[in-house]
Each structure stands twice: as structure tokens, then as C-alpha cells.
């Protein structure tokens, strides 16, 4: 940012009053960026808080400690965002960690009011979306025309060149894995038993993560380990898991035939 400002001074600041105009523009740009950064955290945070903490806290039967903690959570968010410009670490501790911890504490104090069978699905989904946006709000993206290596704090070193190309068909393999991972996630919505539904979603997420992870492994490493000789050694390495798999398949087939 500083280097950009100096470059503007050198290029545009030749005429009378040019320097003043450029500096004023730079200050305005910084203020706009700061406002945008605060809004990115504050608006989703307030929305998530309102949808998932304020709403259940305002219901009949919510305990007083839960309501107090809910209020303190919002105050922590506001104070954290307010001080984040001058003291970034304190602002982050308050508006991120303190806010989330207090919201979790409020949920714990609310008890059965936020039980799964009492949740409104649409409101819960919108609240979850608010928390996702809040998490993204804390992130940052590279500014246009900004090269990270130009930062004076960047450590000098040789450029890290890629070590090789992806093997043929890597994108296809990974795409198949991602498509396969979507199946259990979709099918989990068919589970209607309340206790099993939550378990089904947890299992589906685990399956999806495992599938994408294994798919990425196969897509990338397939070429790297293709030089293993003899190739039958690869079968030998998978012998244990393939044997157990064969036993499971045979047991399943026998059970199917018996029924």
C-alpha cells in the first residue's frame, strides 16, 4: 500500500497541488477499504447472531443467563470491530474468538429450546449461511495489481517452480470423485427418522471428505508412482485391504443369496 502511494506521488504529483490531491485520494481509498472490511465482519456477524442467538433467546422459556450472555456476545462483536483498526489482535480476539465462544455459551444455556426437533429448518439454514458469511468476512483476498513478493516483509528466495505436470486424466478422476461425493450428501436428505437423520448427514460428510481425499490422491499420485517396478508390487501392497474387501463381498453375497 505504501509503495503504491509513493508511486502515485512520483507519477502524478508533478503539478501544483498534485501531491495533495493524490494523498487525499489515498486516504479516502484506505478509509473505504477499512469500512468495507468492518462491514464484511459486522453485517454477517450481526445477522448470524440475530438468526441463531437472539431469536431463540427471545422465545418464552429462555433463561436470564442465556439472554445476558447473548447480549454480551453482541457487545463483544461491536467492540471488537470498533477497536480492530487500532489494535488488530485485540479486535480479532474479541470480535472472532470472544463472540463465537459467547454464542456457543448462549446456546448451551438455552438448552432444549434449540433442540433439533424444535428447530425451524429454513431459519436454521439461513442462520448457518450467516455464520458462513461471517467466517468469509474474516478472510482476505489479494488486492488487484498487488504482488505479494513486493512486500518488504516477504522473505527472499528462489522462485518455487512446479516439479512436474499433472498426470493425464487427473481432472477427470477428481471430477468423478467429487460427483461421487455429492451422492451420499444428497441421499442423506432422504433419511426421515430424526435421530438417524443427523447421523446420516455426519456420515455423508465423512464419506464425501474421504472420497474427495482419495480421488485427489489417485488423480495426482497415479503418475508419480507409475514407475514402480515390477507393477505387481502395487497389487502386493494392497493385498491385505483387497483380501478383507473380498471377504466382505463374499459375506454380503452369501447373505443376499440366503435371503
Amino acid at each position, binding site marked *: 500500500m505504501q509503495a503504491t502511494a509513493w508511486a502515485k506521488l512520483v507519477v502524478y504529483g508533478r503539478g501544483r497541488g498534485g501531491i495533495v490531491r493524490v494523498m487525499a485520494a489515498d486516504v479516502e481509498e484506505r478509509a473505504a477499504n477499512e469500512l468495507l472490511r468492518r462491514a464484511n465482519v459486522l453485517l454477517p456477524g450481526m445477522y448470524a447472531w440475530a438468526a441463531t442467538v437472539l431469536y431463540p433467546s427471545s422465545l418464552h422459556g429462555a433463561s436470564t443467563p442465556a439472554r445476558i450472555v447473548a447480549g454480551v456476545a453482541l457487545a463483544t462483536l461491536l467492540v471488537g470491530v470498533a477497536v480492530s483498526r487500532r489494535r488488530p489482535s485485540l479486535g480479532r480476539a474479541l470480535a472472532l474468538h470472544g463472540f463465537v465462544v459467547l454464542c456457543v455459551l448462549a446456546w448451551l444455556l438455552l438448552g432444549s429450546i434449540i433442540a433439533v426437533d424444535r428447530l425451524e429448518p429454513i431459519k436454521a439454514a439461513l442462520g448457518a449461511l450467516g455464520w458462513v458469511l461471517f467466517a468469509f468476512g474474516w478472510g482476505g483476498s489479494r488486492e488487484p495489481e498487488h504482488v505479494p513478493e513486493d512486500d518488504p516483509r516477504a522473505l527472499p528466495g528462489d522462485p518455487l517452480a512446479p516439479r512436474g505436470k499433472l498426470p493425464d486424466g487427473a481432472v477427470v478422476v477428481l471430477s*468423478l470423485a467429487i460427483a461421487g461425493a455429492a451422492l*451420499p450428501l444428497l441421499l442423506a436428505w432422504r433419511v426421515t427418522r430424526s435421530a438417524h437423520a443427523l*447421523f*446420516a448427514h455426519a456420515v455423508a460428510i465423512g464419506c464425501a471428505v474421504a472420497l474427495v481425499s*482419495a480421488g485427489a490422491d*489417485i488423480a495426482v499420485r497415479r503418475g508419480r508412482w507409475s514407475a514402480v517396478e515390477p507393477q505387481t508390487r*502395487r497389487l502386493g501392497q494392497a493385498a491385505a485391504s483387497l483380501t478383507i474387501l473380498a471377504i466382505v463381498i463374499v459375506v454380503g453375497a452369501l447373505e443376499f443369496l440366503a435371503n
Partner: protein
Amino acid sequence: MRKIIDALSILLLLGGAAAFALGVRALGDERDLASLYWLVAGALLLRSSTDLLRPKPESR
């Protein structure tokens, strides 16, 4: 041989995806034992697919 083993690992991966889908579907159909079976089969299929890729380090 190399291509056959590569294809086998990809087939095992697809089999794992199908087994996981069948497992979650069986859970929805209230067939808990079948669900457990398919999920275990899916995990084994995935494990086999990645074991086919990974050469163990040479013993010295």
C-alpha cells in the same frame, strides 16, 4: 500392466462412491445392518484404491 492397475484403482474409487451412496440410502430405508455393511465396504474399497498407488519405502 500399469494401465490395468491404474484403471483398477479408479474402479475401486468409483465402487467406494457407489457403496457409500448405497449405505446412506439404506439408512434412509431403515435397513441399518445393510447400511453398516455398505459403509464398511465403501471404506475398504477406498483403502484398496489408494493402497494400489502407494509404494512402501524400501527396507534398508
